C-alpha cells in the first residue's frame, strides 16, 4: 500500500466531494423531491390521464439505466438542437431520476396516513388540497424519511456517473490520480472510503431528522 500516494490524493478526492458530489447530490435531491411530489400526486389523482403519465414516467426512470438517462440528455438532446451544459444536464438527469424513485416512496407514505386524517380535514371544512398540505404531507414526511434517505445515499454514489458528462466530482478525481499513478485499486478503495464517510455523516443526519419528526408520533 502506497501511503504517500494515499495521503497526497486524499485532499483532491475530498475536495471533489465538496465541489462536485455534494452540491450535485443536494441540488438534484431537492429538485427531485419536488418532481417526486408532483408525480406522486399525479399517481393518486383521480385523473386517469395524469395517472397514466405518472406511471409511465416512473416505469421508464426505474426501468432504464441512469447512465443512459445521462447520455440521452447530454449527448442526445443536441441532435434535436438542445445543448445543455454539463452541470445543468447532470442536475436535470439526476433529479428526474430521483423523481422517479422517490415518487413511489412519497406515494406510499401518503397512502400510509390513515384515511381518518383526510376526513378530519374535510370535516373542519378543508379542501382536498389544503388537507393534503396541512394534514397529510407533514405526517407522510415522517414515514418517508428512511426510504428517502436510502434514495439519497444511492444518489450520492450515483453522482459518480456525472464524470461521464464532464462534471468533475469525487470519483473522477480518484480516477485522475489512478490514471497517472497507475494505482487503480488503491485509489478506488480510497474513493470508497470517502464515500463511506460521507454516507456515515448522512446516516447520522437522517437519524436526527427522524428523531425530530418522531416528536409528535405515538411510541
Amino acid at each position, binding site marked *: 500500500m502506497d501511503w504517500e500516494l494515499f495521503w497526497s490524493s486524499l485532499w483532491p478526492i475530498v475536495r471533489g466531494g465538496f465541489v462536485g458530489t455534494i452540491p450535485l447530490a443536494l441540488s438534484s435531491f431537492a429538485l427531485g423531491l419536488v418532481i417526486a411530489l408532483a408525480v406522486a400526486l399525479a399517481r393518486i389523482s383521480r385523473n386517469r390521464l395524469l395517472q397514466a403519465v405518472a406511471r409511465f414516467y416512473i416505469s421508464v426512470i426505474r426501468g432504464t439505466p441512469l447512465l443512459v438517462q445521462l447520455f440521452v440528455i447530454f*449527448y442526445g438532446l*443536441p441532435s434535436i438542437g438542445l*445543448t445543455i451544459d454539463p452541470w445543468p444536464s447532470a442536475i436535470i438527469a439526476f433529479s428526474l431520476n430521483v423523481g422517479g424513485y422517490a415518487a413511489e416512496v412519497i406515494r406510499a407514505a401518503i397512502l400510509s396516513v390513515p384515511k381518518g386524517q383526510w376526513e378530519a380535514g374535510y370535516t373542519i371544512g378543508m379542501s382536498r388540497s389544503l388537507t393534503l398540505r396541512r394534514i397529510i404531507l407533514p405526517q407522510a414526511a415522517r414515514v418517508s424519511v428512511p426510504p428517502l434517505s436510502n434514495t439519497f445515499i444511492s444518489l450520492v454514489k450515483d453522482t459518480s456517473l456525472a*464524470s*461521464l458528462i*464532464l462534471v*468533475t466530482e469525487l470519483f*473522477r478525481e480518484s*480516477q*485522475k490520480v489512478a*490514471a*497517472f*499513478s*497507475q494505482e*487503480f*485499486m488503491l485509489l478506488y478503495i480510497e474513493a470508497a472510503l470517502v464515500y463511506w464517510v460521507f454516507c456515515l455523516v448522512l446516516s447520522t443526519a437522517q437519524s436526527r431528522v427522524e428523531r425530530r419528526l418522531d416528536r409528535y408520533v405515538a411510541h
Partner: protein
Amino acid sequence: ACSSGGGDSSGGAGTEPEGLSLDAVQDAGVLVVGTEGTYRPFTFHEGGSGDLTGFDVEIVTAVAEKLGVDVEFQETQWDAIFAGLESGRFDVIANQVSINDEREEKYDFSEPYTISPGVLIAPADTDITSFEDLEGRTTAQSLTSNWYEVAEGFGANVEAVEGWAQAVELLRQGRVDATVNDELTFLDFEKTEGADDLKVVAETEDASRNALTFRKGSTDLVEAVNDALAELRADGTLAEISEKYFGADVTQ
C-alpha cells in the same frame, strides 16, 4: 480454464503475482491476453457481435503463435485492465498501451508495435492552427491516454472523457474546441465514418509508442516476445497486418 490460466501460470499463490516466465507460459500452453474488445480498429468484435478481431488482436495472436502457445482473450474495460494484469487475471495487455514513465516504472514493455504521432483535431472551420493555440482552449481527452498530458502541457483546459467517440461528439456539438489523439484512431475514423467536418491541424513531434504490457519481472518472456516481434517484422507479417487496418505501416 479461463481466468485460472492467468492465475496458475503466475505461480506462487499467496502473494501478488510476480513476473511471468516464458516457461510458465509455455507450460500452460496459453497466453492470456487482456483487451477491451470495444476499441476499433485495435480490438473489437466483427460486425459488433462477431468474433474478437482488430490490429492488436492479430499482432498478439501472431506473437503467441511464434511462442508456440495458444492465445486466449479476456475482455474488460480500460478501468480494470491494469488491475487485471496485476492480479494475474491475464498475462499481457494488448490494447494500444503507450509507454510512459509512470508505466515503465510499474510494468515491463515489449518493443513498440505501433508508433504513431499525435494529431490535433479540430472542426473544419477552426482558427486553431497549432498546438500553441490550445492555450486557454478546451479539449476533450481520455484520462488514461498520454494525450491528456500533451494537451494540458500546451495550456488547454482538458475535459476528461471516456474515449474517442465522446470526444468527437463533443467536438461536433461545439462543446470543446479540439482534441488530441493518435493519428491511427483518426485515420480509421475518417475511413469508416467520414470526417469532412473535422480536420487535422497539427502533428506532435514525439510519436506515441505503444507496446504489449507485462507484469514487472517478466524478463525472459519479454525477450521472447521481442524476438517474436522482430521475426514478424522481418517476415513482413507486422506490415501486412498494419496495411490491412490502416493502409500504411504504422509498426515502425
